[in-house]
């Protein structure tokens, strides 16, 4: 029975070849990277296993020794830290994104000022995940009283951007700070309100080959493909900007 269980575990995800690439990527890239993975698998005759979560959680897993080949984060701070600690190679800046205020379709909220109204249910990312830290950077640029009023409306600190989108599409929250690509991926259920240029944080994505990668060469080609290749095109059509 144990042998059968073992066969079951190695069998799934094995795909065609024996080479298997494990990718840990920020939740905001879920749709884009799932779209381009089949092309990469076909071209490389390998199977790609991608797991998506908050960049901070994925970084913590790598610190705990998770066997991952590629790390792709929604900021450059986390990859730079991991690189400084010798856990991943030199990060490649491969895409940019834009922080926006997202509201359910038909909402009366028009600007960031409206979110300061008492009783508005706001959902943001937890301080440890990139989306949450970008949001706090942006709010810190507002006058102190306004920042305080907006933070007082926060009802949930979500562990990743998908959690924020879920609360918005379910109608539980009135507004949330997410990436513009999340609004596009929500298929019209959400409206994006752009932030004034002076409030916009620089959102740059960084990726690198993990030092202990089992497939370093394949991992290298995957990372390069985020900048130029099928995955780069998939990111562009999802709304990500090119590398800065």
């Amino acid at each position: 029975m144990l042998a059968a269980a073992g066969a079951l575990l190695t069998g799934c995800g094995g795909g065609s070849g024996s080479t298997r690439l494990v990718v840990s990527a920020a939740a905001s890239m879920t749709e884009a990277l799932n779209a381009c993975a089949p092309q990469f698998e076909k071209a490389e005759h390998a199977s790609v296993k991608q797991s998506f979560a908050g960049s901070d959680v994925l970084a913590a897993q790598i610190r705990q020794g998770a066997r991952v080949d590629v790390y792709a984060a929604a900021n450059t701070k986390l990859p730079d830290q991991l690189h400084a600690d010798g856990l991943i190679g030199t990060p490649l800046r491969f895409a940019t994104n834009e922080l926006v205020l997202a509201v359910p379709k038909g909402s009366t909220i028009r600007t960031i000022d409206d979110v300061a109204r008492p009783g508005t249910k706001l959902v943001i990312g937890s301080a440890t995940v990139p989306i949450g830290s970008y949001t706090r950077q942006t709010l810190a640029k507002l006058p102190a009283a306004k920042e305080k009023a907006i933070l007082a409306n926060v009802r949930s600190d979500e562990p990743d951007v998908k959690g924020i989108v879920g609360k918005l599409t379910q109608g539980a929250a009135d507004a949330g700070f997410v990436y513009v690509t999340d609004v596009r991926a929500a298929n019209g259920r959400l409206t994006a309100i752009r932030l004034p240029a002076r409030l916009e944080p620089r959102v740059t994505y960084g990726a690198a080959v993990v030092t202990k990668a089992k497939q370093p060469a394949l991992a290298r080609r995957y990372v390069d493909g985020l900048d130029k290749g099928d995955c780069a095109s998939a990111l562009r059509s999802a709304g990500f900007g090119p590398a800065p």
Partner: protein
Amino acid sequence: MRRGGWFGIVLALCLALALTFLTVPVAAIFAHSTPRDLVSTLGDRSSLDALWLSLRTTAVSMAIILAVGTPAAYLLATRSFRGKALVVTLVELPLVLPPAVAGIALLAAVGPSGILGGAVDAAGIELSFTTAGVVVALTFVSSPFYVRQAMAAFAAVDRSLLDASRTLGASEARGFLRVVIPVALPGLASGAALALGRALGEFGATLMFAGSFRGVTQTVPLAIYDRFSTDFDAALALSAVLVAVSAAILLAVKLVQGGAALGGWQAE
């Protein structure tokens, strides 16, 4: 060890394997956190907020489960009716639902855009992002653990005891309270402990249905996940506290049962 021979050895080996597999991860939590870590975790305001919230929500949820679940389990254990198997299956279903499914199901039912969302809202009840929402999530996922066990406990009560109390003129309600519940108590307690443990550990449904906010909806498991990425040691220490609390509950139940549950097959 004459008894059983090779079969006895297989049994012992499997127990050793199971024991190692189940205890090493739990022991590792304590290997990493010194008693001082535990104390400093308890001194941290946000950890205390999470612990206090977990205890409050679990207590309210357990009160609801015991008050409603006990009579419901008694009915299921003592009456026969058409479709009973279906009812029992429906009651037990959340037991095997993944937490994420429980979260989605609650949103689809009583979430703001759920089928009963309008009615809940009209009644002035707010569940998303509120402590009440956490209680709903905990009750949903943990009550089947209690009801199932309570049914088994009631079914095992000797009917002649109740009949005797009836012939002495006691009503069924009185017999239920005075005779059946005391006899079934060890089984009820172990069901309550299972439900309590499940409620204390609830993560996915709470996060999806109620959100995560310090002091309001961020229970201990959510606080552990929040710390995992930035402060692994703090996450470990908080986990250790949760393990200690859960172990204390299990142990207390075993003591209440007076070791009856620990006995082996009695010799004929």
